[in-house]
């Protein structure tokens, strides 16, 4: 069995060697002539302007967070599922009701997330009119341009 590890190891070494040899050879053999137009980032022929950094939408983080929580719930269900049959013999229906309670508590979490609108991709903001939106630092058309500035209803001291 250990001979197969040796095969994998040799394979890895060869891969690394290929990488290194090709890069080093190329670096030694090519001419070095950098100038400004060559160093610019390529934007399909257009002139690049502005910073390449974009505002990352926080909804992606929220979805990842919900995934983690429910994934950990599944992690807890896995060992339970493995010994469930045995447990039915020793403690009886309690085995089922315990997990039922656990899932119910997490269902409350799901209900919370759902009813607060965090599962909608485009979040509905309930406001009576545009004035209220402006007072809350939001606008119907964009949500990103006020980030990082103290105008977002932030105060120094409450």
């Amino acid at each position, binding site marked *: 069995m250990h001979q197969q590890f040796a095969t994998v190891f040799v394979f890895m070494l060869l891969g690394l060697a290929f990488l290194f040899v090709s890069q080093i050879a190329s670096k030694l053999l090519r001419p070095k002539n950098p100038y400004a137009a060559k160093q610019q980032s390529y934007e399909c022929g257009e002139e690049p302007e502005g910073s390449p950094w974009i505002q990352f939408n926080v909804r992606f983080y929220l979805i990842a967070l919900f995934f983690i929580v429910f994934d950990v719930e599944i992690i807890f269900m896995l060992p339970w599922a493995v010994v469930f049959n045995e447990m039915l013999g020793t403690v009886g229906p309690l085995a089922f009701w315990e997990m039922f309670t656990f899932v119910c508590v997490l269902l409350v979490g799901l209900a919370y997330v759902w009813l607060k609108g965090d599962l909608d991709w485009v979040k509905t903001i309930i406001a009576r009119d545009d004035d209220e939106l402006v007072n809350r630092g939001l606008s119907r058309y964009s949500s990103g341009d006020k980030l990082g500035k*103290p105008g977002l209803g932030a105060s120094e001291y409450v």
Partner: protein
Amino acid sequence: MPDLTTLHVHLGHYLTLSAILFFIGVSGVVFRRNAIIMFMSIELMLTAVNLTFLAVSRQLGDHQGHVFVLFALAVAAAEAGVGLAILVEIFKRRGSIDVDDFRKLME
């Protein structure tokens, strides 16, 4: 012909690895200014803890360590989620995640 049939990884190796990971995590939290890197270092510390528990549990033949790891994973996930959410909130208001910029509360 070298002996390829016995594994030479003992408990000590695991414990050393986890101690090294733990201290890398601690130094990450102490010496870095970027809050996301600090969270990552905290996760590294928790990984080291998990590794210690599993190694010891394997050595002793006791399943209690595995159970502990399961719960420690859940705790780490919850803590990271809450911490990053707080970080998002503070970034929205201050525009920075460099912890040196958060000095409003220092005397």
